């Protein structure tokens, strides 16, 4: 009996390679390639008056220098607006190299190629750029005030404005027995993968073919964008994603200036060219996220049920909008979480600032939305003196109400309709795990010892697995080796293992015989990419469907050969046999042999497929009219809508009464991503997500000064958590399968991060006894809040317990 792989905590098949130094990341390729460096703007907003490269020209090892005026045709044009939207009224994008004006520190101005990176940086350092300074617009407040503009032709700095409303909000608000207002703020953070971006290009002038390696989350996207820019037929360009050292959203943006320029230079120079992003470059020229100001007005009844929820927020989209307004759209829609307010109105303004552009970072607008919603739930509970978990449960969408249509349009342009979830069950599990009902006693005990502790909660729903589609192509060799190709990319999610588990089960073959390739346009040219917690849902189902096709073909061939009905056959451990008559059998590899009629017998197996082997019907062609040679299966999975995962987190924090230091004592996660392919991998995703959530809540922020300089653009100053800052995560899972796809899967990638700021704010507020409305929060900021609270500038919570002990 073959062990079922789906659902088993199978060890990762990629690990032996990765732990022994045999991974191949972008900069591990192209040792003899020329290398690129860039002159990037040191100013946030300026006109470029002059570029003088004279001094750089005699740099030893220099190969070439290009400024915007050297770029030809589409290479120099504005980069594309990748995701247009009717509400994106003033999209603006940069260029591969800046022309006339720069809009953020880090924008590329001059492209230098040399024999190695040392020489390229030598030359770049000698290039002089003269600037005429323009006023820098930094931060949401300054952008919103619009006394200065980022783009002269974008009034109010507003790139997009969107209003969605469900129900008669004004009437519901007016009739609500209770009303509260909240002013909230979340600062910038960023994906910050351990490996930055990188591009390596090889131009084969004999074949007139460009091969491009990029540390990207979408190889098909990069391929198409580069082909368009360089004026090459798609058939003459391939993009391969090697091992990638993390993405977390930042690498879904494309084409980056470097992805256009590096291959362009490789073609011009007739020599391989490579660019590997350094850490400072990543901070100032990749992407950031999160920054928003929010205003919430909520009307509710005596029981705490939300009758009217009115949200306005201002979203910092940075200098350009190539990725459209996906992030604020997600905030606006996913803010609702597991709740069903009577009426809802959400309005946002997406604003330009002279800072690094904003595109999705793990969570992608959800952490901000969940922060707004969960702060609101806590405020309602406090106002009414009701338990915080109880208020939430009174607003839950119930299992019997699924599927639940919110009446809003989601990020994929389709209805925001939850497919499944059991929120009361999740909450019950969370309360049990964290010991919700025992916390009062725990706090009392802690207070006796002069300790200050708080309990926080945060709930979310995450739309995952958005379309349009992913596909898979499976080829079974005569040896029984199963090759699986799916087009989306991998950045550590264990796809080589998880997809192999699915295929092994569907085909009935050993896991070891299944080999998965991702992100290689030579193997699968149709794909979208890895983002929005979609890989397991989209490619997971696609490989299952493709495997079912391959299986059907194998059974058909075996049925013919064994002269039985295909319905009577089963496949186990790579062997096809008649159910109940296991001696009538054939290896799946033999069906691959028989699937491909041959003229030449190059090995023993092939001999069986040649034209003089066995008997055949002379009236039929060797390959039937409706067949193709080879044992293959191909299929695509394209869902009607996203599937909605959910989860609930609780944290216990301790705040030092004197220093205001914040320590997370416990962090509990209930997670529901439908059926799990590999619970070990899901658990790992949750752990990593929580670490990023904690980082975003307590440590990470992009510190821009008023002139637009990023003051902490290094790992010395940007406080990414070490092991010493990340709590041990306690997890429990609920599996409510998605009814939308054959495997019942929902996405898991972003979940752990989403409620981080909400749950930590909730816990700190509970410890301190006054509202926490801005995240992240440092000990200094908490200490200052205490001073303001003591001066009466910040009200106490109604439920405030004895917290002013010193």
């Amino acid at each position, binding site marked *: 009996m073959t062990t079922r792989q789906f659902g088993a905590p199978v060890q990762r098949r990629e690990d032996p390679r990765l732990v022994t130094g045999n991974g191949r990341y972008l900069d591990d390729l192209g040792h003899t390639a020329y290398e690129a460096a860039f002159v990037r703007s040191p100013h946030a907003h300026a006109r470029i008056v002059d570029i003088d490269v004279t001094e750089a020209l005699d740099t030893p090892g220099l190969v070439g220098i290009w400024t915007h005026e050297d770029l030809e045709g589409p290479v120099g044009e504005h980069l594309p607006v990748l995701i247009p939207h009717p509400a994106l009224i003033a999209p603006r994008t940069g260029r591969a190299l800046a022309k006339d004006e720069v809009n953020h520190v880090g924008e590329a101005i001059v492209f230098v190629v040399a024999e190695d990176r040392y020489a390229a940086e030598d030359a770049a350092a000698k290039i002089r750029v003269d600037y005429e300074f323009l006023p820098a617009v930094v931060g949401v407040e300054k952008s919103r005030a619009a006394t200065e503009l980022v783009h002269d032709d974008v009034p109010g700095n507003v790139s997009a404005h969107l209003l969605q409303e469900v129900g008669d909000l004004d009437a519901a608000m007016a009739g609500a027995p209770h009303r509260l207002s909240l002013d909230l703020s979340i600062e910038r953070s960023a994906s910050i993968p351990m490996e930055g971006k990188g591009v390596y290009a090889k131009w084969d002038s004999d074949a007139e073919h460009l091969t491009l390696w990029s540390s990207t989350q979408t190889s098909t996207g990069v391929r198409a964008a580069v082909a368009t820019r360089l004026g090459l037929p798609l058939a003459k360009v391939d993009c391969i994603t090697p091992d990638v050292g993390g993405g977390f959203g930042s690498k879904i943006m494309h084409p980056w200036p470097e992805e256009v320029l590096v291959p362009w230079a490789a073609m011009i120079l007739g020599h391989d060219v490579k660019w590997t992003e350094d850490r400072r470059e990543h901070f100032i020229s990749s992407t950031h996220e999160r920054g928003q100001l929010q205003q919430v007005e909520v009307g509710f009844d005596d029981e705490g049920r939300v009758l009217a929820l009115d949200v306005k927020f201002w979203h910092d989209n940075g200098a350009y909008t190539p990725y459209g307004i996906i992030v604020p759209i997600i905030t606006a829609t996913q803010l609702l979480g597991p709740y069903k307010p009577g009426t809802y109105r959400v309005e946002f303004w997406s604003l330009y600032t002279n800072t690094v552009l904003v595109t999705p970072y793990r969570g992608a607008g959800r952490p901000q939305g969940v922060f707004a919603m969960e702060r609101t739930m806590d405020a309602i509970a406090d106002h009414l003196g009701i338990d915080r978990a109880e208020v939430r449960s009174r607003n839950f969408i119930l299992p019997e109400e699924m599927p639940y249509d919110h009446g809003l349009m989601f990020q994929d342009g389709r209805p925001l309709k939850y497919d499944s979830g059991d929120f009361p069950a999740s909450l019950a599990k969370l309360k049990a795990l964290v010991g919700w009902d025992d916390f009062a006693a725990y706090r009392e005990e802690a207070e006796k010892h002069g300790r200050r502790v708080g309990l926080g909660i945060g709930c979310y729903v995450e739309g995952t697995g958005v379309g349009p589609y992913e596909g898979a192509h499976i080829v079974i060799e005569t040896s029984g080796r199963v090759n699986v190709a799916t087009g989306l990319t991998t950045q550590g999610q264990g796809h080589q293992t998880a997809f192999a588990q699915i295929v092994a089960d569907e085909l009935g073959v050993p896991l070891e015989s299944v080999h998965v390739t991702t992100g290689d346009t030579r193997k699968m040219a149709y794909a979208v990419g890895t983002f929005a917690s979609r890989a397991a849902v989209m490619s997971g189902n696609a490989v299952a469907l493709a495997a079912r096709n391959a299986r059907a073909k194998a059974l058909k061939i075996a049925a013919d050969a064994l002269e039985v009905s295909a319905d009577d056959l089963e496949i186990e451990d790579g062997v096809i046999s008649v159910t109940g008559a296991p001696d009538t059998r054939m290896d799946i590899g033999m069906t691959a042999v028989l699937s491909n009629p041959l003229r030449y017998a190059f090995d023993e197996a092939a001999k069986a497929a040649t034209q003089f082997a066995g008997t055949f019907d002379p009236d039929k062609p060797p390959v039937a009219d409706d067949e193709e040679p080879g044992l293959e299966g191909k299929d695509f999975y394209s869902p009607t809508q996203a599937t909605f995962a959910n989860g609930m987190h609780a944290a216990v924090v301790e705040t030092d009464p004197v220093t205001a230091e914040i320590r997370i004592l416990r962090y509990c996660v209930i997670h529901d991503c439908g059926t799990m392919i590999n619970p070990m991998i899901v658990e790992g995703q949750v752990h990593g997500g929580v670490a990023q959530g904690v980082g975003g809540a307590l440590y990470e922020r992009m510190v821009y000064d008023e002139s637009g300089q990023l003051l902490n653009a290094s790992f010395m100053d940007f406080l990414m958590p070490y092991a010493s800052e990340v709590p041990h995560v*306690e997890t429990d899972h609920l599996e409510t399968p998605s009814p939308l796809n054959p495997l019942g899967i929902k996405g898991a990638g972003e979940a752990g991060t989403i409620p981080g700021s909400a749950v930590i704010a909730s816990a700190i507020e509970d410890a301190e006894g006054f509202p926490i409305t801005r995240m992240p929060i440092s000990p200094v900021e908490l200490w200052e809040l205490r001073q303001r609270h003591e001066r009466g500038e910040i009200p106490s919570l109604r439920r405030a317990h004895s917290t002013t002990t010193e």
Partner: protein
Amino acid sequence: MSELFPVSVSVNGVAHGASVPARRLLSDFLRHDLRLTGTHVGCEHGVCGACTVLLDGAPVRSCLMFAVQAAGHEITTVEGCGTIEAMGPVQQALTESHGLQCGFCTPGFITTITAYLRENPEPTAEEAREAISGNLCRCTGYQNIVKSVLRAAEIIRGTDAEAGDRQEAPA
């Protein structure tokens, strides 16, 4: 071109002789001259620890050293800690415990943990966490790396006890 300096260095037990510019970083020398690309570079300023190698057995940041400074020393990189066919105990433990995701930071953890366990063969969970707190990982949240340290210690000690016996308890 700039002046070249001879460097003789032993890497993973193999003697290498090369001529390099004075400014060539040890990390670049290992990666691009010797093509031992298992050593990764994550920040170029000694904070993330991805480039950690062992210099005469002690962990050092290879992005903060020049290749010429390594002359006459013995270096161990992740490639020297085991192979796919014969993984070392730390590599085996990380694989068993799901101690890596994207794998980019992993080589630096492997060298760091290898050196640590030589001097501290029986760490507690808390000590294991402390031992890895000089290396950055963006994927795992560290929990399974802590578990891997404990598991590696078990493998080295030759005990077959479940790693779970010494798992971290919440604070």
